[in-house]
């Protein structure tokens, strides 16, 4: 572009580019727009000085404020803990029964328990504690190891088949996989368990399995199949089935003897948190 050319109609300079007689106007940017652009550049320079901005080889420029979001979060968490400390101590000292009686403390325990449940328990037990196949439902009135507040607290504390020395321990044998019983005996036993829960089953199979049940199952599940919390042995006569209620599910469980692991939370969670969790789970509705 050699010469400046001004468009007659608009009075604005053109860029000198021409397409079939149409010329492009070189309309200047609005001044307010340019003003904002320059202001942001000035702002950016100020930002470099004040805040962390430039990456280095092993570190970065810290800025005069020495600001760090990580420090901020740490400080906020510490402040939150400090603010909660009083209540936390109260919770740690109070007996579980006392917590149930004190509405304020109960509310605090429920809130803390809900948060801890969301962080730690939800992956297995579900967001509402509704459980899944192999993971007990915490809402109902069926408890393998007891549904009193102290039972629940102890279970959370030591876990089930966990690494803790005091763990709650039980093991359903894998009667089929380990060759303890013959396949046809397991077929009969599965029918027997279906019969126990009040559903129709082949009477001949049930008759054949009766002595088998006494010999192999009654030790833990009881002669009537009502279960025993000492061994964490489930009641086989009710409507609740951890591994499924169908004949095939029951057969599979006798054959393989599934048994999940609940970790010990002692050491990972504070005693107050475990207490809060126990209160929360108890109040899901099934607590005894």
């Amino acid at each position, binding site marked *: 572009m050699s010469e400046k050319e001004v468009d007659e109609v608009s009075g604005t300079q053109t860029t000198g580019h021409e397409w079939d007689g149409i010329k492009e106007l070189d309309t200047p940017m609005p001044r307010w727009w340019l003003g904002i652009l320059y202001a942001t550049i000035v702002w950016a320079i100020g930002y470099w000085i004040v805040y962390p901005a430039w990456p280095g080889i092993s570190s970065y420029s810290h800025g005069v404020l020495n600001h760090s979001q990580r420090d901020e979060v740490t400080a906020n968490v510490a402040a939150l803990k400090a603010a909660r400390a009083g209540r936390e101590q109260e919770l740690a000292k109070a007996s579980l029964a006392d917590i149930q009686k004190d*509405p304020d403390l109960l509310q605090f325990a429920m809130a803390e328990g809900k948060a801890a449940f969301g962080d730690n328990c939800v992956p297995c037990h579900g967001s509402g*504690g509704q459980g899944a196949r192999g993971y007990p439902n915490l809402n109902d009135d069926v408890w393998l190891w007891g549904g009193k507040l102290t039972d629940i607290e102890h279970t959370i504390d030591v876990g089930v088949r966990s690494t803790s020395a005091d763990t709650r321990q039980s093991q359903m044998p894998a009667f089929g996989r380990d060759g303890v019983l013959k396949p046809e005996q397991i077929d009969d036993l599965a029918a027997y368990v279906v019969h126990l829960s009040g559903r129709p089953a082949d009477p001949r199979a049930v008759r054949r399995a009766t002595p088998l049940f006494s010999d192999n199952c009654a030790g833990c599940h009881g002669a009537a199949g009502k279960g025993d919390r000492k061994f964490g042995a489930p009641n086989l006569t009710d409507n609740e089935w951890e591994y499924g209620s169908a004949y095939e599910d029951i057969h599979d469980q006798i054959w393989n003897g599934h048994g999940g692991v609940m970790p010990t939370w002692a050491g990972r969670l504070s005693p107050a948190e475990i207490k809060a969790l126990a209160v929360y789970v108890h*109040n899901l509705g099934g607590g005894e």
Partner: protein
Amino acid sequence: MSVHTVIENGQRARMAADGVARSDAVATNSAANRKLFKSRVPIHPKEAQGQYRSFKWAMMAFTLTIYYVTPWLRWDRGVTAPNQAVLVDLAHERFYFFFIEIWPQEVYYITGLLILSAVALFLVNALFGRLWCGYSCPQTVWTDLFIWVETKIEGDRNARIRLAAAPWTAGKVLKRVSKHSIWLIFAVATGGAWVFYYNDAPTLLHQLLTGTAGLGNYAAVAGLTFTTYALGGLMREQVCTYMCPWPRIQAAMTDIEALSVTYRRDRGEPRGAHKKGDSWEGRGSCIDCNQCVAVCPMGIDIRDGAQLECINCGLCIDACDDVMHRIGQPPRLIAYDTEANVLRRQAGQAARYRFVRPRTILYGAVLVVVAAIMLLTLTFRHTLDLDVIRDRNPGYVQLADGAVRNAYTLKLMNRSDQARDLRLSVSGIKAREIKVIGDGEIKTSVLLPVDADKVRTLRVLVTVAQPDLAGSRGLVFVLADKTGKESRAASAVFVPGAGR
């Protein structure tokens, strides 16, 4: 004084009539000067004097007084609620307006209020034109205030034009600095007043002055200081013309029967300068003195007809009336009138005002209906409320013996200023057990204390035995004041489990 010796703006000015100098003011939006890209033409409105100017001063005082004084009014609500008459309490999620206290659940009152305001705006617009723009819109009120400050410091129109063109002497710097400083003081006061609506005003004022108020308050003051200064001081009429949607909406909603500031061209045209002694026969009353343009804060020429820039403030009426008086002509060459009347007079008919038109009837009816609904709901407003939220996860709980339990979260709302014992009962279902977590079993009903002005959240478990499941689909929670004067019911679904 001869025609050619009057000096205005350092130039020789023509006389429009004996004793009336012609202003060289030109409408900033005149069709003749319009370009593809238009940079702003500075407007230096001349100070008008007359009825409308006085009314505008009065409205400015009135609206600013409301704005500045309201947060300082007190209203006794007892010990459980703040005593500020108008308060938006964000922290506690309450809005107080004298005798009304609105909870977030009742935000529809705000919606109703906004609908009322909009319809009222439409109605006033259909009847009297843009009165809102002219006299009560914060933008024009603050612009007017800032122009008043400008006039006090830099002088009236001609002095300001001279000052703008003058080189930067110490005197000009002093005037400009003091003008902007005073603008900023008003701007700070404006932003400062705003935050008082959200906090206890006396406490916050003390905190603001001692530097102990929250950062949000300072940020709000700073932000509103900036917008007040920029919109009222620097941008002025551009806000109305380019930023505000109302002129465009209004242009679509107005009709020729709506009153608005109108140049009566039937009487004014043909316009032209008038010499003393000349006859008024065969010519219009407009002597083309441009005083209406000089006083216009929007910088327009009302004689170009109705236009979206016009805020209907009527200052041109004052200016024109003054001129008409001086040349011995009847006033109101520019007046609140309708386009229809101009046409009628041009056709030789008598002017008439049609306030009752389909659109005014419609707006009026909508206004009355909405206002009546609001009044009714406010009058019969409950101070007690119950929300029931059924647990969705798990949707139902199967118990060992085949019974099914559903869980509900109940919110008991006590909107009164007294702590109350509320009686909760359940009906409509044959339940084996109804349990309130923390409060034991509900036999027939349970008494639950709820603090004044508070919500109490409960978890309620409802268990239905297996034989009764088939008929159990829903239930009703009933919450009643212990005295039995007020009660609220909320129904909820009961899920009897899978396969039923």
